């Protein structure tokens, strides 16, 4: 697909884009910004652009998805919610909370952004479910850069070929543009107990690593100064109390002091997805770090995260190959 400088957008093309987008086309500096107001408008305008060799996502031709801010009705039985790519994640969470559900523990950048920011970004919409890192998305609706519509089928799990929707998730728009998604939620914890563990950094890291491995995962954790770990754990049901008792017992076995503590303040600062193997280094480093979306193999750390710690891998090279096979080499602009 060829790069198209702004000067080459003819009036006719701009008019046609405007009609396809329901009127939402605006020149902002050197960029042409198209703002569809509905899913149908979005599908139409992307397909129209693809038919003329134009590709949204470059420097010059921008798809503003703020109009796709639909937040659907919660499917309380499946714990799913369908929402537009432009919907603020915070608004989605609000709707879920009203149904006593939640997207789970996520970093501040996710809560501050839109569904598209989250799902197409580095965290790819994944969630930690009882320590298991899994797609937090039941289905996606998108338009590929050649104009082909993509709508994956919502199912709890499937063996119907590869999970092709994963190429949209975390793909930064490389293969196509996300328009809508059905997100998976989970029950909101009915009650949280806040537990502080204090002692040797290595033992704190070991305690946390074991909890993750045994799939007895705190909702969130905070590392304070390399000697203190604060965790929030569900504590409503009898089975949850048993898990808490196990946590306390194991802490004692590791020579850690335990006490109740107050909820931690909201996390802020730099974010990084770290493999679980980086936990000992993270605790040792001291500082004030919040751990969210904790899974057995990785956590997202927020706060004082040393740059020297290993980060999550990237499959970007192979994704680029698929994208190139789909629409040709990426344009430099436009």
């Amino acid at each position: 697909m060829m790069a198209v400088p702004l000067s080459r957008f003819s009036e006719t093309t701009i008019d046609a884009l405007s009609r396809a987008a329901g009127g939402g086309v605006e020149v902002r500096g050197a960029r042409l910004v198209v703002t569809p107001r509905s899913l149908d408008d979005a599908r139409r305008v992307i397909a129209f652009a693809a038919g003329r060799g134009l590709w949204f996502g470059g420097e010059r031709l921008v798809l503003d998805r703020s109009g796709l801010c639909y937040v659907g009705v919660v499917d309380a039985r499946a714990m799913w919610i369908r929402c537009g790519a432009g919907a603020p994640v915070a608004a989605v969470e609000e709707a879920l909370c009203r149904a006593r559900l939640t997207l789970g523990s996520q970093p501040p950048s996710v809560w501050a952004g839109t569904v598209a920011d989250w799902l197409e970004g580095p965290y790819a919409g994944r969630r930690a479910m009882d320590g298991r890192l899994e797609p937090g998305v039941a289905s996606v609706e998108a338009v590929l850069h050649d104009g082909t519509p993509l709508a994956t089928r919502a199912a709890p799990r499937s063996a119907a070929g590869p999970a092709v929707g994963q190429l949209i998730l975390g793909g930064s728009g490389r293969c196509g543009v996300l328009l809508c998604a059905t997100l998976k939620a989970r029950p909101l914890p009915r009650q949280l107990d806040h537990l502080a563990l204090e002692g040797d950094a290595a033992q704190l890291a070991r305690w946390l690593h074991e909890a993750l491995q045994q799939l007895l995962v705190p909702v969130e954790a905070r590392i304070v100064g390399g000697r203190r770990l604060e965790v929030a754990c569900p504590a409503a049901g009898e089975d949850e109390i048993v898990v808490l008792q196990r946590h306390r017992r194991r802490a004692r076995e590791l020579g850690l002091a335990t006490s109740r503590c107050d909820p931690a303040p909201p996390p802020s600062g730099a974010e990084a997805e770290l493999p679980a193997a980086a936990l000992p280094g993270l605790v040792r480093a001291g500082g004030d770090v919040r751990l969210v979306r904790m899974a057995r193999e990785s956590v997202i750390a927020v706060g004082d995260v040393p740059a020297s710690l290993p980060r999550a891998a990237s499959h970007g090279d192979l994704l680029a190959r698929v994208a190139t096979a789909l629409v040709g080499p990426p344009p430099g602009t436009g």
Partner: protein
Amino acid sequence: MAGVPEVPLVPRAVGHGDAALAAALAQVLPRDRISVSPGDREEASRDLWPKTLLWLRDGRTPPPPDAVCRPRSVDEVAAVVRFASARGVPVVPHGAGSGVCGGTLHLAGGIALDLRGLDRVRRIDGEALEIEVEAGALGWPLEQRLAAQGLTLGHYPSSIALSTVGGWVAARGAGQSSSRYGKIEDLLLGLEVVLGTGEVVRLDRPVEGSDVIELFCGSEGTLGVITAARLRLFPAPEVQLPRGYRFSSLARALGALEDLFRRGLRPSVARLYDPFDTRVALGAGAGGGPALPPPGRNALRTVPERGGARRTSVVRGARAAALQGALSLALPMNAAAGLLRASLLVLVHEGPAAETRAEAARTRAIAAEHGGQDLGEAPGRRWLQKRWAVAYELPAMFDAGAWVDTCEVATSWGGVLELYRAIRKAVAPHAFVMAHFSHAWPDGCSIYFTFAGAAPTARAGARSYDAAWRAALDAAARAGATITHHHGVGVLKRPWLANELGEGGVALLRAAKRAFDPAGVLNPGKLLP
């Protein structure tokens, strides 16, 4: 939608393969790892797709490969793939042949890449709780080795004795304990794959951005040859607590199952039997089932004699006739089964002792809320004892002049009962239907149907077999369910895959094929419409 695809068939008498191809292959692979013998070719010509047993009764078989290669290292796999890619020769990766959808059939001859020689355990890390193992490792010996170290994969497909790690990943499989430990995609931490170009790529999780492992998982050998996997391990459970509950209706039982999983409980096994299957499950004696999985695939590849059901005695003949007679009346049989009401829920809780007991106690309370009658441990113990038995029973059905197959679909909780009814209704004219609900998740579950039809002749059996499958998958597609939860697509479900993936999904799959297998030699005729 189109029906079950036609497969080109050849007479069962398989001869020697392509000697010229073998000679050329000997330039890249030691000669003793290449075979063109009739026996090896015939073995590689089919998997455990039940329909192949009908063809065998008729003296026919799918086309065999021209040669069988048995590499023993990743480099040898890459060499064979490069060879095939340069010459445009089809390559079909093979594990232990336990697929049930025809995913390893050689529709266009070519090379069977038998990966069972890559069976090394490269690393077991008891601290990090992970294992790196080659693709050809068989499940049961692997699990035994882990058990000796107090570990488990938690992956127990009913095919565990005759399926490989690579096959699990390639077909996106599930084990009987998936509700606690996850499907294979949940266990997968890394992959080593030989692309169609012969490149070896190694992919790890966790991943920032798009996770391309998800693309190879479920690709059924069409995008790359999986040569090794890094998988999660778990501590072996301290306790295992089986339990059974009886409900007055399937709907009430489903309500309990949904409630359990939506509230976050994770029994390792959760199997809810429909009313007819409940009779079968409760009626099954404690004895008779093997304590261990079947010893090998030959036990499941019983080949009936040509020309109809084998009748070696008057009693056996009478039983076969009765079975055929009953199954030829599928519609009234299904109607009669529909009059039954009670449903059995079998659960197995496992894990650390205190937490598992607490989970079992909470489960009892939830089951009681839904009117479940606690039957104690017996139903769960019986299930554990007979968990591998079904694999033995299927060939005997074919032997008696019937056919039987299983179909596993999945959907969200709101659609489960409707999907069950829709598929039962659609298949009822063609085959007797029963089902259980298993592989439950917080958002939905799989329905595992068993279809059984009369096959007085092999060709008549094939007709009712195709009709039943077409009815089932059309009904699943209409209901918006996925057509397969863990058996995969293979040849059998390929016509329905395009509908499930949609235009965009097919476009992405084709793009991945062009990117990773530009010569199109890997498992041609599979997955891609």
